[in-house]
């Protein structure tokens, strides 16, 4: 049986070297900066987005939804490093995310201010996650997936059962309100919360971007494609895998610290197997092995999960029988169905679709070549053309 981590996945290998052509960097960065600025400006816009958001962009309802989407985007990015880039199918990534939430909350309840609590919580969660990873990575492929599943499930049960009485059990633990900085504490003015979520997503993106561009990142992808080959080159794949696992864990824990404020509490569902599996869906949906793909996947998943149930009450589906409209607005059905479609027909996810559309657009563009014509490189820092490896 072919071990999972060395399945020939036919994924495009993210092969951009650390040094890029200067013109390319600036275009990619320019696009990125624009996106960030636009996103940052959203709370100022009194624009309604029908169906997708409950009210105007600037309304607290919409901003909260976007915040959740952004946190999911960042956590999905962290999982993409583990699964999309390194090929480790962990079914327990929610564990470290929940650790971030609960640890931050507990430390705040113990008296620490939010940012100190968050920093300490991220460090502690990262450590625990790395220790668990060190154990889980001793086995490979399906066994690894199941061990991570087991760990995740054990933690979830621990939170529910709450033997020490500190986690709040099934109801969860409300956030320690007094320890939240004023700007972030208001339930009505959530702009700063939104910007915090945005900051997290951006930082997650940048960190992942740098890590995957590094030599370490190249090894990660090599491990995903053919672990035996990496070993035969004299590299100790275990260490690299552990680094990927730890790296993803730290970012996810940070996401947890932010999510604590957005959700205004810690809830066991954040540690559920369901959420771990949802992360897989996010990454595959958006596009494995591409950072912005994972981000898109997380964003879409967050928005769909929160907004789809509204569809049945919005009147759009009134023509359908009760059970049908309930089913269509059921996020699990829609996302699961999309997921299957993607896996079967568009394994590169949304990123793949965009790339395909992009290259088709470019071949259609008229080729009037003279020295003054600027040939613009593609939108992403990674050139589509140079990616397809021979498999």
């Amino acid at each position, binding site marked *: 049986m072919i071990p999972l981590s060395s399945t020939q996945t036919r994924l495009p290998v993210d092969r951009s070297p650390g040094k890029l052509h200067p013109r390319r960097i600036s275009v990619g960065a320019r696009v990125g900066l624009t996106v960030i600025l636009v996103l940052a400006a959203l709370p100022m816009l009194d624009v309604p987005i029908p169906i997708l958001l409950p009210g105007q962009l600037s309304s607290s309802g919409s901003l909260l939804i976007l915040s959740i989407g952004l946190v999911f985007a960042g956590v999905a990015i962290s999982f993409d490093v583990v699964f999309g880039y390194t090929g480790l199918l962990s079914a327990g990534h929610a564990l470290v995310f929940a650790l971030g939430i609960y640890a931050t909350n507990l430390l705040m309840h113990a008296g620490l201010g939010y940012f100190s609590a968050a920093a300490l919580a991220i460090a502690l969660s990262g450590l625990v996650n790395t220790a668990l990873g060190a154990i889980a990575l001793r086995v490979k492929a399906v066994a690894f997936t199941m061990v991570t599943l087991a760990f995740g499930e054990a933690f979830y049960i621990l939170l529910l059962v709450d033997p020490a009485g500190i986690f709040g059990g099934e109801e969860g633990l409300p956030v320690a309100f007094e320890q939240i900085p004023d700007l972030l504490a208001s339930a009505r003015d959530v702009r700063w919360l939104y910007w915090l979520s945005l900051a997290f997503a951006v930082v997650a993106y940048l960190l992942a971007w740098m890590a995957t561009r590094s030599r370490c990142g190249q090894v990660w992808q090599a491990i995903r494609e053919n672990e035996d080959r990496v070993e035969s080159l004299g590299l100790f794949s275990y260490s690299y895998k552990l680094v990927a696992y730890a790296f993803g864990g730290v970012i996810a824990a940070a996401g947890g610290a932010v999510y604590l404020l957005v959700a205004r509490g810690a809830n066991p569902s954040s540690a559920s197997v369901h959420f771990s*599996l949802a992360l897989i869906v996010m990454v595959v949906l958006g596009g494995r092995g591409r950072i912005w793909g994972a981000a898109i996947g997380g964003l879409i998943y967050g928005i769909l999960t929160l907004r789809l149930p509204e569809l049945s009450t919005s009147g759009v589906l009134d023509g359908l029988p009760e059970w049908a409209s309930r089913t269509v607005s059921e996020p699990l*059905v829609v996302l699961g169905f999309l997921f299957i479609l993607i896996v079967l027909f568009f394994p590169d996810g949304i990123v793949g679709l965009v790339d395909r559309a992009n290259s088709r657009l470019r071949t259609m563009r008229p080729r009037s070549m003279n020295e003054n014509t600027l040939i613009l490189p593609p939108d992403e820092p990674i050139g589509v053309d140079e990616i397809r490896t021979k498999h």
Partner: protein
Amino acid sequence: MTTLIVLTATSLGLAGLYFLLSSGLSLIFGLMDVLNVAHAAIFGLGGYAAWVVMDRFDLIDSLAARFAVATVVAVIFGCVLGYFVERTLIARNYGDHLTQILITLGLAFVMEGLIGGIFSYSPQSIAQPAWFTDVTVILGGRIPNSRILIFGISALVLVSLLFFMKKSKYGLIIRAGVENRRMVQALGIDVARSFTFVFVLGAALACLGGALGAVYFTGITPALGPNLLIFAFIVVIIGGLGSIGGTAIAAALVAFTQQIVNFYVSTGLGDIAVVGLLAAVLLLRPQGLLGRVASA
């Protein structure tokens, strides 16, 4: 003493359910190397199939007879579903394990969502014949008859399966295929056909388990199946891939550990205990009790 009797009876009932849930998964995983993430969701679907019959099938007055029909309907449903899933989704990806896991994952999501959409997320309790809830006193312990029935049916299935695997040519092919699929091909036998058979069998067993599970658990929800997924994995891994006997022993082991620790130590810790058992087995003795190694 009586508590021990009742505990034993409940554990045996639960063990029966775990066996029905996991035996199919063990064969599927053992023979096809497919980690069917949707397997527990199929179990849940079986429960709902039985519930629908009990709820809507007014033609039959006697609840007991209706339940018999419900069980049969659940099994048939499982066969059809299993066939459909295997032929359309699994068969096109033989050998690509990652894709198979992802597809079954998506399927699990869709199934859970479909049930939730059609039947709502609130727990439904299944109508039971009076006899089920009646209690038989055994050695001083008051045991609900349903537990005895579940155990009885599971034991019957176990014996039939063992007999089938040992005596029939198909069982021979499956046993050999679990051990060395390629060599079976090299003997001129088309293993792909047994894939479909095993998948259908697994789905049928899961649905039977689901129908009985609807009785065992007080209320069924769309999450019931998926919640049991980890226990199915635990039983399969501890019991060893492809081993019916191993699955039975593991099912009993897991059920008893869970019930005893939950009861005598603290609720929920039993679940953690068996989950810990899974991790321990994977890390220390990957081939489980009687079967094949779970990785590569």
